[in-house]
């Protein structure tokens, strides 16, 4: 039913072995394959702009979001593999995020 454009492969980068997110090096559409070096390939579950983060494996609400091998915030909801990770579903531990 949807007029899906042909799938493409979008490069992404993971900066540290402990990371729970990858950074996209090009914009992805839903269903695009995400290629991350030697990491297991995965599929984007939604549209994600260039340089935004993508979740590498299913995460529970309250879990740490890790990039550079360091905690950059907390998952506010469960986040599935292939979904976008940004301010709609993660919050800073230090910025005292009071909603947006």
């Amino acid at each position, binding site marked *: 039913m949807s007029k899906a454009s042909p799938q493409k492969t979008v490069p992404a980068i993971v900066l540290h072995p402990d990371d729970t997110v990858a*950074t996209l090096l090009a914009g992805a559409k839903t269903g695009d394959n995400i290629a991350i070096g030697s990491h297991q390939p995965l599929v984007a579950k939604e549209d994600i702009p260039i*340089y*935004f983060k993508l979740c590498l494996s299913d995460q529970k609400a309250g879990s740490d979001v890790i990039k550079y091998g360091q905690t950059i915030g907390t998952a506010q909801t469960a986040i599935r593999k292939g979904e976008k990770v940004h*301010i709609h579903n993660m919050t*800073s531990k230090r910025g005292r995020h009071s909603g*947006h």
Partner: protein
Amino acid sequence: MTALQDFDGYHRPNGLVGVRNHVLVLSVTGLTTAPARQIGAAVQGCHVVTMPYSTGLIGQDREVHYRALVGLACNPNNGAVLLISDHKPKAETLAQAIKAEGQTVQILTLNEVEQDPVDLVAKGTRMAAQLAKDLSSQRRAPAPVSALRVGLKCGRSDPSSGLIANPSTGAFIDQLIAQGGTAIFGEVVEWIGAEHLLAARAASAEIADRLVTLPAGREASAMTTGLDLMGSNPSPTNIAAGLSSIEEKSLGGISKTGSTPIMGVLDYAETPQGSGLFAMDTPNYAPEHLTALAAAGCQIALFTTGAGNSFVSGLMPTIKICGNKVSCQRLFQQFDVRLDDLIETAAPLPTGSRRIAEATLDVANGQMTWGEILKQGDDVVSRFGAAL
């Protein structure tokens, strides 16, 4: 990695080396801003710094203002200073401090022209013209790369800053410091979430303590005003570009400092003693931060940006570095170093670091930055409280 080469700079009597040879027209009161600008516009080779504040500063502002004015005057990129003020005694006190640092300085005040700003412009133009003539006979001569003091700045950051522009800058800074050079970073709020990594590199326990307490203090003052740091930092531009939290921004940001020990934490506009990497207590805002670095004697600023930040220092040639492919297409001329082709390559950092090193030495040797070509550049000293 090949060693960084010598550069040709202007050797000052106090042993410092400039990469530019400005006549600095320094107006130290808001009353003389317009005449100072008119003098600077009339005479080739001038750079004008004007201060809107003067009389009535108290406490920390009084101390910082004085230190910053002396520091800006003594930046080695200035060959001479024409100090313009209202009252002669005040100008003389400042000029003595500038002279004590080995800088050539002349004074012109409204007192000497019977408060007539038109006469001030006429007299000042003659004085600045003679200084420019004198400076134009000076020649560049070889100087070691250890004579460089480089200021670091991020602006309009995005995830490409932390992926390529900042770590490439950090790799160059490591090399500069290994060869005896100096670098200064600041922007205290952007240490939040990465303080533990900075503190682990501190050269002493006291330095480690300040690297942790300074951001905590700024965070606490934001909280007492009801300011949600998430609303101001990351900024809306940062968030629109993909940065989600201050921690994420900070972790990317500190990678421009490289990996060497942090030798000290400087107050705003304070000159470092010795060489190596220093932190400085500065706000993030580009004009205030870059001015503090110029007052601390940095000759060049390395300014990494994702979306593109248009501000440059007037006293320090400011090298804009970008790794965002969209920004590089949009603003292609305006980045002095482009790294957007490197992110997906196998060994991006050594190549990025080499490009930054080449650009830094080219600019040190006299090549103009985009900001200089467009005559951009301004200087503004931070304020901390009310005046009398």
